[in-house]
């Protein structure tokens, strides 16, 4: 039997909503709160400080992806399982009614992680999608992790948190079980891909594309190689017969530093100059483009907005994995 029962947590949630619905006496301006929920989002945090970071991201995410958030935090071995509930609220601009989401925080000793899945079964918001956001490796060896994954519709992890490209092997293993797995490293390169796709849409550049001889993608030394691998694999998907090289640049801003497409007598390059600025050079004409910053909240927001299959990632991932193995 789990040390805490889902019924108790659900009762605490009911009490929480009741208290929010009856604000302090004398607060005549209040119009109550709107309870918002479009999914269950379970966060498997690495530790206590990571859980705090995750909560900050959840607060920002709820504006677009309101959820029943459940933050799982591993505690010291031997510690009892404990649960608290709270609400994350915000007031939309110009509105007099707060929108609130519920958050459940569950702590369990590392040796008690296996007690968590049975509690989770009772806490999933009925009939809504469920997503597991795994923020590190702490959970991966626990059998409980497999149980958690099995009850989810989608799993989100970030291969940039793992050594080299080892995260890709973990993603493959989960994908091979038929799970829908997303990688935040893939979402992090969306602005790069968008910039390249738009630049290559311009008729003069588009005509050159068919005669591309080589592609070089450079990542930064000291950063995860996966984002550069994904950009390279994505280009390879479109230009199958073209040789793609992955290089490493000196440390600097960003994970991807450079992308160059070369053909017979022409070159199109994208070179990061500052943290979000990229110089696009097509035939000597240079313009600077500012990329949207892709912080954790932005990449999560992008991933959560994709509820079904992601056909482009499904095709790019095996190519990236093959490239990583070379």
């Amino acid at each position: 039997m789990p040390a805490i029962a889902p019924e108790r947590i659900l009762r605490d949630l009911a009490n929480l909503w009741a208290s929010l619905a009856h604000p302090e006496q004398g607060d005549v301006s209040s119009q109550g709160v709107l309870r918002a929920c479009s999914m269950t989002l379970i966060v498997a945090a690495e530790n206590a400080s990571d859980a705090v970071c995750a909560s900050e991201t959840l607060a920002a995410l709820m504006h677009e992806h309101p959820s029943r958030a459940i933050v799982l935090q591993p505690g010291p071995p031997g510690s009892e399982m404990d649960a608290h509930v709270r609400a994350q609220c915000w007031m939309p601009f110009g509105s007099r009614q707060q929108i609130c989401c519920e958050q459940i925080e569950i702590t369990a000793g590392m040796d008690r992680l296996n007690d968590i899945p049975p509690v989770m079964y009772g806490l999933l918001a009925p009939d809504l999608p469920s997503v597991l956001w795994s923020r590190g490796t702490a959970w991966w060896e626990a059998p409980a992790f497999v149980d958690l994954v099995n009850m989810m519709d989608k799993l989100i992890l970030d291969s940039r948190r793992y050594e080299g490209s080892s995260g890709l092997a973990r993603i493959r293993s989960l994908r091979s079980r038929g799970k829908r797995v997303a990688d935040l490293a893939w979402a992090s390169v969306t602005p790069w891909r968008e910039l390249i796709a738009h630049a290559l849409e311009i008729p003069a550049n588009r005509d050159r594309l068919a005669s591309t001889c080589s592609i070089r993608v450079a990542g930064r030394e000291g950063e995860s190689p996966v984002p550069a691998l994904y950009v390279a694999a994505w280009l390879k998907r479109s230009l199958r017969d073209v040789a793609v090289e992955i290089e490493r640049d000196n440390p600097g801003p960003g994970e991807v530093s450079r992308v160059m497409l070369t053909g017979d007598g022409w070159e199109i390059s994208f070179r990061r100059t500052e943290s979000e600025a990229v110089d696009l050079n097509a035939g000597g004409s240079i313009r600077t483009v500012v990329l949207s910053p892709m912080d954790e909240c932005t990449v999560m927001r992008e991933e959560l907005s994709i509820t079904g299959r992601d056909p482009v990632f499904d095709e790019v991932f095996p190519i990236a994995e093959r490239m990583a193995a070379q």
Partner: protein
Amino acid sequence: MAPASLLHDPLRFERRVPPCAIVIFGANGDLTKRKLLPALYRLAYERRIPPGFAIIGNSRTQMSDDDFREKMRESVAQFLEDSPFDAELWRGFAQSLYYVPGDINDAAMFDRISRCLAEVEAANQTGGNVLFYLSTQPSYYAAVVNGIGRAELARGKGWRRIIIEKPFGRDLSSAAALNQQIHAVFDENQVYRIDHYLGKETVQNILAFRFGNGIFEPVWNRRYVNNIQITAAESIGVEGRGGYYQEAGALRDMIQNHLLQVTATIAMEPPALFDPEAVRDERAKLLRSIRIMKHEEVPQYAVAGQYGPAQIGGKKIPGFREEPGVDPDSQTDTYAAVAFFVDNWRWAGVPFYVRSGKRMPKRVTDIAIRFNSAPLSLFPGDSEDGDGPASRPNLLILRIQPEEGISLRFLSKYPGRGMRLRPVSMDFNYGASFGARSPTAYETLLLDAMSGDATLYTRQDMVEASWRAVQPILDVWAETKFKFPNYEAGSWGPREADDMLARNGHRWRTP
């Protein structure tokens, strides 16, 4: 597939809007200040319009670029909805605002616009893409279109499109004439007739609701639906626009355009694919299926109303005829209710009751689909003409404003002894499932026009079909001397509208 198209990722990439210039005629008017500029500013705030974007305003008022920028800054700060005003962002945005003063009947003014466009094209790399926006009084539409044509601005290096605000004519013949004038300069695929109701998120959601779910479509027909009621009520009066409104009236101002487009969205057949022409073909087909009334049938199927004075909440509310700028003997309809019938296999015999009015008890727009009652009354006190549960049939309500959402009313057992049934409501509220701010209709529609997506714009055949549907009513009402006012401000309209439904055994619901 070409390599470049393989690079597309529609799931993750923002829809691409090409750089362009927007030329707004009537740039000193209310629509520009209240809706267009706030929408464009908000799109810039969200980085949804490209950097090479420019707005060229035109009106008769003499102003410099800087005067225009300052005027628009005040308007955006005042009328921006659901968003804070960012002075820093405005400074950048304002740099793309230009102003060309002049009369639209003056050919030289169009030459000046042409020169301004050439400068903007060189400076902003717009590629010659131009979107014209007619935000003037409707009587100037033809003059503007002719001016554009004479200055050879309707064709150019990039694409050229024109957005035209409603009303598209005053009746069927003037709409056809206007279309002819527009087509002398623009091809139909360049013309974007805006009906901002179609840009509302909740109206767009009707398509998602109907064609994205499997459970509703099987009951979406004459076998299960008893009648459909579409209500667009305003609690306010004419708010200083009495002069304009006197020429329009509720039938022209709301029903002929907004509410018939909503009707078409509710009743159309599923399109073969979600593509602008396929969706518009189905809407047009539905509008063409609306039964055209004979003149002698009009009194039976259409009711005109005009509000009179009333005391509401201790405040004296003037009647329409007492409003400034309104003829004391005005015959204008501030309320109109029409029973439309759609002559196709899906809807034959199902009345679509459409009503719109000013000075109603509250501001509300919704669509109520009333289903047939259960075929057999099992429970005590249950009969369709009584006060029992059968007189409370299942209702599906699509709420467009102000509380966007969907409700389903059904019967449930009242707790306790006996089998007493009570209607209950199962509610979906947009805000509760999607915390995100919904774009305004103008944000959606402007972005669509810049991207070349005409799905939410009306086409010539749709406009003419909807005029054809109301033309007999306009003809008969023009010849009728009404005993106005016939409803009190703050009520749900004239008794004749209740009688119209009662003749079919129906009654208006209270939104």
